[in-house]
């Protein structure tokens, strides 16, 4: 006779510290973000850095040392501290863009290389804005959308989170999901079956699509060296470029909602080849090199360090 042993799941606590922090973030802090000056709002970010600071600092330093040999060792502590501060500010800026009047509160210092974007758009086949996960990308995209340049963002589904207690899971998790959906702007999940069709539909309309090149790899991947380490990249972007004929423009965004800068680089020169695999191998190095350059120049802006 077969015996099935069942191990009782660990009881979920009624309330966790994360429940309390998410409550403070989604309710009082969100309301305050509409009325208090940005400098005061950002001071809450400094407070949050004390929580788990040791753990995050250590992780940031380790990742920077392992993955980013191009960055001088004597700057690693500074970069780690800045990266933590920027990550906190990004969360606070999310509160700012969560309000309907967000466009009035975004202060873009300058947009460099706008001619590169316009030149790419004039091709009529749409433009992929190639980025890495930088803290200021979201505010930049919302700013551009409010300025008449709507951007479809390709991204992963929002994870539900495993930090909740019973109260948080029941009350705060749905609220957090609604909030994050609202601040993302126009987006399509890579997990959607029609994801690529939506992207190509937008490109065929001459529109803009943002793809984070350093995102988690998809079902079809190809290996490459990135920041000194070997990793897999999704080949989906290369299939889209090859089959749609769209332009690819690197976009860089740094800063915070009260003072940020956007820079468009020259269109990447796409090497046409007869086959799919040849196309990937011919064009992958330019994509990798462009994105590595952004990260090595602004390592403190990369939010992806946190989730590795």
């Amino acid at each position, binding site marked *: 006779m077969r015996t099935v042993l069942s191990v009782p799941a660990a009881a979920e606590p009624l309330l966790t510290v994360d429940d309390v922090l998410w409550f403070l973030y989604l309710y009082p802090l969100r309301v305050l973000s509409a009325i208090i000056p940005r400098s005061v709002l950002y001071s809450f970010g400094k407070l949050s850095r004390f929580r788990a600071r040791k753990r995050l600092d250590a992780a940031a330093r380790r990742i920077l040392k392992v993955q980013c040999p191009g960055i001088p060792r004597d700057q690693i502590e500074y970069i780690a501290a800045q990266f933590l501060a920027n990550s906190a500010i990004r969360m606070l800026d999310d509160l700012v863009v969560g309000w309907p009047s967000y466009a009035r509160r975004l202060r873009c210092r300058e947009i460099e290389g706008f001619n590169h974007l316009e030149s790419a758009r004039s091709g009529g086949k749409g433009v992929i804005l190639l980025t890495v996960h930088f803290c200021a990308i979201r505010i930049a995209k919302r700013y551009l959308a409010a300025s008449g340049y709507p951007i479809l963002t390709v991204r992963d589904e929002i994870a539900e989170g495993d930090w909740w207690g019973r109260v948080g899971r029941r009350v705060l998790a749905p609220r957090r999901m609604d909030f994050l959906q609202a601040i993302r702007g126009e987006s399509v999940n890579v997990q959607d079956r029609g*994801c690529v*069709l939506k992207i190509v539909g937008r490109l065929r309309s001459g529109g803009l699509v943002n793809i984070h090149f350093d995102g988690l790899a998809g079902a079809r991947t190809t290996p490459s060296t990135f920041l000194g380490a070997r990793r897999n990249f999704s080949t989906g972007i290369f299939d889209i470029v090859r089959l749609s004929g769209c332009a690819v423009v690197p976009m860089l965004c740094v800063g915070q909602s009260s003072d940020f800068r956007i820079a468009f680089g020259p269109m990447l020169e796409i090497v046409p080849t007869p086959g799919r695999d040849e196309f990937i191998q011919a064009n992958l190095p330019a994509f990798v090199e462009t994105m590595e350059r952004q990260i090595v120049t602004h390592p403190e802006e990369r939010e992806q360090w946190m989730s590795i």
Partner: protein
Amino acid sequence: MLEEVAILDSIALLEFVTAVEKEFGIRMEPELLDFDFLRDLPALASYIEHRIEDAGAGA
């Protein structure tokens, strides 16, 4: 339905669309690049027929 004759991921769907366009010399409108439309093969065939007829009438 399309998924009954082939297992297609998102990229494969795009390759399917591109192949159909190339074969019949048409270009599908962006709003028709939709999974629910493409999976309905009779509707897709009917659409292609109409596009070919329209191209023939216009010639």
